């Protein structure tokens, strides 16, 4: 039976018909048991890698500088390395970042119930509700309906905010090829965002482009949008959130070469004669032979490079953080000084705002720079430079060179712990 036969026709016979926007992945799973069971496996992954992996690690404990940099904001309380897709509901309900006044918007990227709910009630109405009010509707973690169109199994944009953002950029995603969709589908969630207005409408700030400078311009223009005001400095800060798609597509090596997110994070596996895409999405470093080996013959070589890149970007990130903390300390003193020049203070705050966003753009994106090493390092150099300029401006505002102290974080003892 293995004789020279024509290639088997692999046309697939569905067992059941899945209705549009079906939230329950187990129903889709009847047709596609391999994809379904590999998706379920993300619930139990817990192996760490040096910078990532699936174990739940607290960023705040690993690097207490973040407690200072997010002071006054919910991220100073609780901020973890992400885990597998099956854990979304558990994790969003457990995080201390969610309080009684939090909006339902926080469920946007956590459940396959959403496409149905959005179709029913509209995204604005969904976002206007409180988190607690939405909870009863949210039963399923991320599932097939977040990525696939029932019936065709095409990859699609399911998040209306992302659809709107693409449109604002003049992009018609329905013209995208299969290979492009293998990245764009992750952009349903792995993008930066902010909540616009009192109804906390989910907004993806791509109107001016997807580079960090474009996003800063867009948020600056949107009435100097701020997530919170930094304590003691008065800086209106905007928080960057996992701009994975933005960073990756900013001319990275792999993106330029046509590689997609799914190529690395969803390598194919074999089940007997069948190949299928692993839906057990995790750090590719946990199975590099499969994830990288299809393209790189010598996996050890590229893994060694991953180490070099991640260590380099990590050091650059810490350097930017140290500069930011020096700047914040100076700016606090300058703000406290009643004689400080207000115009110069305002300039110092703008420098702080931009420096912190640039740093956070890389800090909050995943892979410790591997997705796009050059862009990450470029941005961190800018963050460092702007932070130092913010400090200098603060000293000028207060006309006080004693604010130019460096190495503030190093001299802290004890180091800060997560906010209550």
């Amino acid at each position, binding site marked *: 039976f293995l*004789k020279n036969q024509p290639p088997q026709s692999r046309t697939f016979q569905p067992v059941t018909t899945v209705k549009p926007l079906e939230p329950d992945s187990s129903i889709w799973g009847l047709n596609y048991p391999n994809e379904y069971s590999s998706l379920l496996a993300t619930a139990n992954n817990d192996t760490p890698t040096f910078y990532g992996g699936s174990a739940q690690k607290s960023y705040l404990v690993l690097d207490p500088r973040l407690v200072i940099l997010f002071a006054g904001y919910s991220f100073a309380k609780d901020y973890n390395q992400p885990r597998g897709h099956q854990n979304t509901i558990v994790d969003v309900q457990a995080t201390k970042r969610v309080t009684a006044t939090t909006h339902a918007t926080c469920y946007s990227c956590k459940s396959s119930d959403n496409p149905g709910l959005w179709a029913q009630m509209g995204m604005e109405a969904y976002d206007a509700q409180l988190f607690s009010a939405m909870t009863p509707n949210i039963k399923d973690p991320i599932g097939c309906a977040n990525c696939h169109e029932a019936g065709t199994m095409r990859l699609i944009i399911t998040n209306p905010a992302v659809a709107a953002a693409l449109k604002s950029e003049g992009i018609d995603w329905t013209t995208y090829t299969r290979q492009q969709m293998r990245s764009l589908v992750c952009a349903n969630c792995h993008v930066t965002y902010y909540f616009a207005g009192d109804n906390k409408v989910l907004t993806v700030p791509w109107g001016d482009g997807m580079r960090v400078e474009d996003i800063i311009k867009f948020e600056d223009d949107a009435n100097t949008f701020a997530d919170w005001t930094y304590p003691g400095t008065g800086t209106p800060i905007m928080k960057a959130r996992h701009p994975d798609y933005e960073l990756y597509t900013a001319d990275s090596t792999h993106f330029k070469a046509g590689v997609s997110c799914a190529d690395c994070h969803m390598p*194919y596996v074999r089940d007997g004669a069948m190949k299928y895409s692993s839906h057990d999405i995790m750090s590719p470093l946990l199975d590099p032979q499969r994830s990288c080996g299809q393209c790189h013959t010598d996996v050890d070589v590229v893994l060694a490079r991953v180490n070099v890149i991640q260590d380099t970007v990590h050091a650059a990130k810490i350097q930017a953080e140290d500069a930011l903390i020096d700047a914040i300390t100076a700016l606090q003193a300058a703000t406290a000084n009643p004689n400080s020049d207000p115009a110069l203070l305002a300039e110092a705050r703008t420098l702080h705002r931009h420096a912190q966003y640039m740093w956070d753009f890389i800090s909050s994106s995943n892979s410790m720079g591997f997705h796009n090493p050059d862009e990450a390092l470029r941005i961190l150099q800018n963050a460092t430079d702007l932070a130092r300029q913010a400090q200098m401006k603060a000293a000028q505002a207060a006309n006080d060179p004693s604010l130019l102290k460096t190495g503030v974080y190093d001299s802290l003892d004890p180091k800060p712990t997560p906010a209550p």
Partner: protein
Amino acid sequence: MLKKILLLVGILVFVAALGLFAWATDASSYLGHEPSTCNNCHVMDAQYENWTHAAHARVAVCVDCHLPHQNAVSYYLYKGYSGMKDVLSFTFKTYPDSIRATQQTDQIIQANCIRCHSDTVENIVAGPQPFDRYCWSCHRSVAHGERGLTLYPEQDSEVYKK
């Protein structure tokens, strides 16, 4: 005693595998050199398909590169050995998802590159120090095309065409 039993089992397995080999495959085809024979095994799909897209498809078949060509004895001996290895690991599914050439295979291929292209490379392979790299460390895609070319599972790309 245990050793003897193990040996016996080993022989039995070998014979069984041989039988399986002859039955499951069009055994006589393996005496030939048709590339489609290699492609009998779906695990060789990617290599087969990529080979057809690469520069050598017109001029060299699998065995031209993958079997030693010093003499007829080594050719058929290795053919038997590697064929059995492939069949055994296929039958018992002991192969990894990403199959890799062994070092032994690499050396065989290298000798074959040089065999066909000796006119071209004589000058550069010669030298006071050994030529310490494989030809395909530069010619990365002549044999099997771009890596990752046939990475993806069978799926309907048509649904993306507007």
